[in-house]
């Protein structure tokens, strides 16, 4: 009985421009079911690209050239596109960093939510609408019934991010990837979203990959942590182990930048 939801082995994603950029250079980590795994590092360390590689959303000139991503016994990197599409948005979901560009400006929130449901669940539109409204409510959007008919540009950043979270959860995924979900938001809103995420983690029994450059946030949200630097995980382990005994100097520098941890 495997208690691991995701096993990433030696993942390599390179970008072939005028030079070869080794964006993800041999990354390995495992995530247990129900665990919150934090991927921390500065911008450009390859965190986002690792997440995108898991869902095979890398576009040319990038290419995942090596490694295995084992999910539910199958290697995602060897899967055909149709099977991958079944997994994207339903068994593995992702919430992106910038809420103002993540949603399509010409479709209503409701349309985009229903679309997410109908892509994976064989229900009729009425049921899909009901499900969408339910999740918009779960993420604590005030006036969620009105927001359903709104367009993205009518909503605030915080609300839009809640929508993205709702959209990622509506098909009850097993693994949720959060790519810097609060970085683009105001500090007060950040706190609210993190509270929301706490709640969701407790209620929905998800496994989570939480990506951030802010060790403070990682410390708050995660159980296990991987520190990324220049495309590699240089240190990995239980959160408290790393905070108390960072082995690498880079990790120590990251920790120092967060004064709250002493």
């Amino acid at each position, binding site marked *: 009985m495997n208690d691991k939801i995701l096993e990433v082995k030696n993942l390599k994603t390179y970008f072939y421009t005028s030079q070869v950029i080794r964006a993800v250079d041999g990354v390995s980590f495992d995530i247990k079911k129900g665990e919150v795994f934090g991927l921390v590092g500065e911008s450009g360390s390859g965190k986002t690209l690792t997440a995108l590689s898991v869902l095979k959303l890398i576009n040319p000139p990038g290419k995942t050239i090596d490694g295995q991503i084992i999910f539910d016994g199958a290697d995602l990197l060897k899967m055909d596109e149709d099977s991958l599409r079944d997994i994207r948005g*339903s068994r593995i979901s992702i919430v992106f960093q910038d809420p103002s560009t993540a949603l399509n400006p010409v479709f209503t929130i409701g349309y985009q939510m229903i*679309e997410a449901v109908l*892509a*994976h669940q064989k229900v009729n539109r009425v049921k899909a609408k009901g499900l969408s409204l339910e999740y918009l409510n779960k993420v604590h959007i005030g006036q969620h019934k009105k927001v359903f008919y709104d367009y993205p540009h009518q909503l605030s950043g915080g609300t839009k991010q809640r929508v*993205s979270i709702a959209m990622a959860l509506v098909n009850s995924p097993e693994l949720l990837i959060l790519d810097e979900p609060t970085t683009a938001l105001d500090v007060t809103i950040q706190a609210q979203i993190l509270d929301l995420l706490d709640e969701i983690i407790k209620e929905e029994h998800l496994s989570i990959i939480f990506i951030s450059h802010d060790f403070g946030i990682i410390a708050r949200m995660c159980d296990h942590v991987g520190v990324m630097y220049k495309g590699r995980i240089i240190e990995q382990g239980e959160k408290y182990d790393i905070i108390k005994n960072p082995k690498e100097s880079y990790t120590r520098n990251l920790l120092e930048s967060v004064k709250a941890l002493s």
Partner: protein
Amino acid sequence: MVSYIIRRLFGLVPVFFGITIISFFVIHLAPGKPTDIQTSLNPKVSYEARLRLERLYGLDKPAYLQYLDWVKRFATLNFGSSYVDDRNVLDKIKERIPITLLINILSLILILCIGIPLGIISAVKRKSVLARLSTVFVFIGFSTPEFWLALLLMNLFGISLGLLPISGIKSLDFEYFTLTGKILDVARHLILPVAIAAFGSLAGISRYMRSSMIGTIRQDFIRTARAKGLSQSQVLYKHALKNAILPVITIMGLSIPGLIGGSVIFESIFAIPGMGRLFYDSVMARDYPTIMGILSIGAILTLLGNLLADIAYSYADPRMRMTGND
């Protein structure tokens, strides 16, 4: 959206006046009075005609009064009488406009139906044969003189192959045709002119559509759509297309003056009795009232076309449809 339209209409007022100023300027470009060149070279124009002309342009009055007079006449579309046959200019134009409008609308439809899909395909399947061919097509399309193409096609289809008629919009025995026969006859006559009219803009629109599509596909929400597990065609033809087509609507509005102006060329080549041909004849005959009349009407048509394009755009883009309640 209604408030947007009203605002736009108000914005048109200064443009309207601007048009009157520029056209006024054009009339008075001629050294000496506009009447001199025409009439002094033309002994047939009688003294009365000259007086009438001077009164028409109010040349006996000071400049600002002349201008106000012109604005009044412009607004009422009173462009006087043609030099050539003394008929009311507006009447002459009214007879010719339907054909020109018909051809331009048909060519717009052709541009939409061919140019947009072509642009989309060259954006989506970048390496395909079709995409490369359409790039070649676009370059050649931008570089070919329309009138030359017209001559070539006339030669090919009209004379060598004898498939299509090369002049006018009706055959000589038009009257004897049935209704369907009549419609088909006109249609056959219009094929070449519409194709030529569409040709130049086709290249431009497909190129623009292509770059708009490419730019849209790079945006974040496309990544979200793929991450949701949507199929490639859903991502491209729903999410991307609906965004990419918006600037193309604006561009189509901007290509309207080009279409109207181009009608001069193909209408004279194909002997189509439209507004463009009338303009050409008037230019050749130095028939100033008609020249100014058509110039002004051309500007008005362009204004209307742009307004329509703007309205269409504001309807299509939800960000415009409501005055942002952010």
